């Protein structure tokens, strides 16, 4: 259940990446994957590579994924900058 919350948090935060000029490596889909994997991996890291079940999941576990999602998107963004991806702002 915690994994579900992490992924949901990651995807929720990805929606706000649309406000940033798109220099993500892989574009908006790259940002999506960055948020998704960032949230999941960060959640796993914090919980010692275990996934809390339905009864062990609490509200902070959803919040825990937020830094991971942001870090994931930032990494993808700077990889885009490093590769010289031009900004796209629709």
């Amino acid at each position, binding site marked *: 259940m915690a994994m579900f919350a992490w992924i*949901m*948090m990651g*995807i929720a935060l990805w*929606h706000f990446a*649309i406000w940033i000029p798109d220099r993500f490596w892989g*574009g908006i889909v790259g940002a999506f994957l960055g948020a998704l994997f960032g949230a999941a991996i960060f959640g796993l890291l914090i919980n010692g590579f275990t996934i809390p079940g339905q009864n062990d999941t609490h*509200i902070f576990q959803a919040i825990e994924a937020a830094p991971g999602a942001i870090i994931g998107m930032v990494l993808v963004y700077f990889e885009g900058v490093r590769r010289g991806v031009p900004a796209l702002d*629709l």
Partner: protein
Amino acid sequence: MTDRRRNLIILSLVGALLVASLAVIIPGSPLSKQTRQGLDLKGGVSLVYQAKPTRFSKVTSDSLNRTMDIMRQRVDNLGVAEPEIQRSGSDQIDVSLPDVKNADQAQQQVGTTAQLLFYDWEKSVLGPDGKSHPLDPAVTGGQGAGQPGNGTQTYYEAVTRASKFKPTNEPDDTTNGLVYGVDDKAKTVLCGPQETVADTRAACQTEGKKPTRFVTVPRGYIIVRAEADDGDKAAQASASDAYYILKDDPALLGTDIKNPEQNTDSGAGGTGQPNVTFDFTSNGRKKWAAVTRVIAQRGSDQLLPGVDAQAVANHFAIVLDNKLISVPYIDPRQNPDGIDGSNGSEISGGFTIKSAQRLANLIKTGALPIKLELISQSQVSATLGQQALHQGLIAGIVGFAIVALFLLAFYRILGVIAVLALFVYAIYFFALIKLIPITMTLPGIAGLILTIGVAADANIVIFERVKEEIRAGRSVPAGIAQGYKKGIAAIIDANVVTFMVAFILFVLATAGVKGFAFTLGIGTLTSLFTAVLATQAVLHTMQRSRWITHPAALGAGERKRRWTQDFMGASKWFFSISGLILLIGALAIGGKGINFGIDFESGTRAKVAFVQQTPSERQVGDALRSAGFNNPEVQKVKGDKELGANGLQISLSETGKKATTVQQVLTSKFGQTRAYQADSIGPTFGKTVASSAIKAIIASLLVISLYIALRFEWKFAVPVLIALMHDLLITAGVYSLTGREVTTSTVAALLTILGYSLYDTIIVFDRIRENIPRMPRAAFTQIVNRSMSEVLTRSLATSFCTLLPILALLFFGGDTLKDFAFALLIGVISGAYSSVFIASPVLAHWKEREEVYRRRRVRIAEESGGVVPAYATAGHAVTVDLKGPQRPSRRITSPEDPERGVSKREFDDLVADIAHETAPASVASKVREKDRAPEPKPKPAPEPDPNADAAPEDLVLKDKGDKKPKRPRNKRHGRPR
């Protein structure tokens, strides 16, 4: 073949099928067939077993088939009409027994392993030291052999003692060792025996027991319960904790006997009691003679003059599924050489007629080759079933009526044709249900009602296209031809995806959901025939009729309003709204979790209403507690049409066999039940449901991606996947926030959303695909904006039309239908939203990064003062001949249209749209401040080169429309303007 002839053939086919369908449907006609109703509509008992291997047999396809054959024979013995026994997955068997009222009895008769074993009693029964003591009555029980009392020990003592014995390795051992769950503090055996610790743990969980440890009785030993007369409650009670340890060295097996019959002991000196007589097979007869000789001989050895033969007689034990059925003695004086088996033998000992019949039937059908564990059981009384059917029918009629009203109001004459097509669809579908036959269940009814929306959607897509063509200046016949020609691709794509998801659901889902998937799949195919082929033939036949010659009659008068919003510009806000909803959903899932029903969590849920008494929650709880149920939760049910005013809902942690006794307990305490419904789901079944749902979701996503990638291009598949995840997550978030219970129905609905929410996405993407070559100099966002403005009405109409029957389900359906409807409601709304505001913007963002569109964007910005307008403007004008490379005509649904060239008005509209700033000034000239370039004067627009940035395959024929005289290619086009 001429179009007229083709249409006549189609209409004749439709008519013939209609007549045939009516013949199948109308009761009393020679071809009439019965509708096969599922247990949830008809009432009955449904049992789901999971097969477990034994020492002699693994769970294979062959062993499962043999097991099902034996079960069928047992069910036949029960006298059940139209039973269904089918395999589910690799190791499960579903048994549906209509009209059966006693779940406990059905379970005992159908799923019992029925392993019959015969033992030489004195030689086999073991003392605390693990050795046999044939002469010690304290071990064998003496004259009371097999009875509770002398020689018996408690279950806990027997199991823990036997666990210390050394395992044997003899070929006739019947087990590899059995595991029990025990409570050392209470000195009781809580659960088992099972073949493995894992199975025992699962069994304990099923029964709501928490053992302190698991104990293994090694191979070579079995624990058997003392004998007790079936009709004697006191004997049953005293035998409940009286056990023997036997050396597992059976003298005969159940396969060594034949022709078992229930009989009465009516011979000389007979008791008149019911018994079971049987013959031996030739091999069995030899074994029988040999073992009885040994037993008689042991008795003879102690038979001294003046000693009562019965006092020294040794015994023979008959064991059925670890219970002593009978332990008769062999009189050494009458049978000093044992008993010849040529005349057969009998089993007697406290049978009632019913229990003797049951044993005879069990022996007759033979032991099951594998062990079966009851993992799910549900029971519905006929009354509740009929009420559920009634509610489903009302929901269906209301759903149909409101969809029909919507179509009539929105499409007028076209609507009449669509409603007729819906009628035809409904009749065909009902006939198919009877003919195939499809077992109608509540989920199946939900699928049927949903397909009414799907069938209407196909009409909406085409009719909107027809209206569009007529508004663009085509004549009514040409508009109809073009509407069908252009709309068919989107409909086929959408229906194929829905069908594929239904298929995946059918293959992977559990039994209850299969009915839903099957009706959805069949309905989708049938609706393609009625909604596309049939309506097309009707419209083509009527195209010169005065009824439809005026566009207004088709709802295609002047367009009152056109969508002109900057969808791409606004997408940031819509993304943010979605992000916020998902954020709340994520927090809700973290904080509140999801309320999984017993389908996933395991347990028993029963609904009951009594004929006379109206016991309180406390009284019912006490009755259940005294019957051995742990912490029953009982609550009054308000507003349940099925149960009435005095309905009660009971939640129990126990499942399996224990759960089948709930109705008996309640009936014995509070009298007959007026309505009773119970679902009992074991933990194994819950896991199966969850894993099959996950497999179905993954398979659906893969298939959908592949299909979209093939039909469009792979970059179109990714936004589709993102939009689908969005829909599923939003639905999950809403379930978490509302605390609504997630059941198997919810999962089925979620999986349907996967297929259905694509409907809108495909409509939008289809138009984008169509507009890409038509707008070879436009930015991708402009193409998307234009496409969305063209299809938004259609998208809203299809979603609204699907919501109508869903709302009917939600308001008029019973609990199961409401479960479906709620998830579908959220999913369809979210699907429509995500198609327009998530999938399309993601696609635009991604495509804009492609070199061709990047160059276009730069050029458009240069031409338009540093800003890319929402819609194509004069600066990047180019007109395009809409005719692409001509493919050989492969007519499936559309006749050749002599007027399919571009009408003058359409041509003018295109020129106006693309080249002359058709977008409203507010949108076209709206410049976001941060986008505005600092240059004071925009440069004069350079002469555009239409071929500068278009891919070769994009364009076939271009002309510079503003330099050529414009005239219609065919004067028959359109009406005078």
